[in-house]
């Protein structure tokens, strides 16, 4: 059970990390395009 929970948390951590990175790139792209 603990292993399953760790896997689910790990999967969400990876998805969230990648989403944050994509969001960061989008924000900087917006700054450059407006500049």
């Amino acid at each position: 059970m603990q292993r399953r929970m760790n896997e689910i948390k790990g999967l969400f951590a990876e998805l969230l990390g990648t989403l944050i990175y994509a969001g960061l790139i989008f924000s900087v792209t917006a700054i450059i395009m407006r500049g």
Partner: protein
Amino acid sequence: MKFRTNAVSSFEIISYYTGYVVLCTALLMTIPIITALVFAEWNAMLDFLISMAIATLVGIALAGIGWRTKQNRANIQWKHGFVIAALSWFVLMILCAIPYCLSGHISSMLDACFDVMSGFTTTGLVLTQDLDHLSTALNMWRHMLTFIGGQGMVVLALTIMIRETSGAYRLYVGEAKDIELVPNVKGTTRIIWRISMIYLAVGTAALWIDGLIIGLKPVSAFLHALFMFESAWSTGGFAPMTQNIMYYHSLSFETITMIIFILGSFNFGLHYAIWQGKRKELVKNIETQSFFITSFIACMLTVYGLSRANVYPDTVSAFRRIVYNVISAHTTTGFGTVYARQFALEWGDFGILIMVIVMLIGGSACSTAGGFKGLRVGIVFKGLIMDIKKLLCSERSRKAYKFHHIKDQLLDDSVVKSSSLIIICYMVLFGIGTMIGTFYGYPLSSSAFEAASVTGNVGLSIGITSPAMPAVMKIYYIIAMYMGRLEFLSVFALIGYVAGGIKKLCVKSLKFSS
């Protein structure tokens, strides 16, 4: 033990295990056969039945030649592991091309081999014609090849293997994977598949829902979701439609695929570590650091360069057309949101140069991605800093330098040297590819773009790859994709083994004649 290895010749060992991998692949053809049955595609079903029969016969023949390997339980040595991996990929390229040839969507066997190698190596360049009218079974086969190729054909065979084989680790390393997640290879390969299958379920579901939202019919949405996931996760670049990712006209679809291919380009060791609770690994690992830094710089430079030329009018179109393509190139995926010639006509030399650099860098080691890998870039960069620091500090105060990749590892000269050697091999392969392109009259920037795409197993095209391109270029691109994916050593071992065999034959015939 030594007696056993000597009793069974290397040829028999190589033949037996190559036959085993071929038989596993023949078994896989049942999936497109079932697909053809479900969708009542009788011609396609016949194509796959014929192909399966041929592959089974070849597999049985190869395994039969080396049958004494099983009887004597002969050990696999390092040289066998490398040669088996390289030879299996070559034999499978020909066998898996048969359904393509029989489908009538391909103009020659060479083109079919090109497409299969492109799939296996997760490159994504296509010579198949009229993709939009391909049978569902053949589409299933194309995307399966790229999905399985991403994890590795030998990895698949080792996973299916009933019991652990002595020396299996040597087979596993032969396919350019060297990470041990658990002490035994079978366990490691099963973890690799487990991670991929969990993501397959999550990713396909996300793309299916999005497909329904953007207006696809339920069955069609499911198939598109499955195919696009397989391509994205394996950083492949194949798509069921000619227009590639542009067919969907959807920011959400593009964003989901982008997240999938970024995750697909990560090391399986990293996935496993994070799933084991070591979540800090995502920011501490030298590979993720290297990827985030280089991809961020590349995206921003390209956005800045193209914004000055007013190529794209707003943030959303810049994100969809520039960032998506740069990340797709960096992860060696090859999904393109612009038409091939737009790179040449709109992006200019600066944009093309950045794309060439990121395509060559590629994703992570022991992942589905190609290129010379972020790990090696990080090691060489840290090695350079280490050398500068050594120069500047006194001999007494010298310390050991480390890098973090799953665990802290010692950064010594041998690690930097081996990383540099692989990078040099990639650069030579890229250089020759560019030279051949220019020899046939293509512009330098276009030749470099396409050469980087095949060397790094990316799949983006600037318009050179087509059924009409010279046969020499097709053959070289096949070799470049093959060598780039197997990271040279296995292919060099195969060449050495064949050359050694020819030399022995020559010596024997000379002795016989004298």
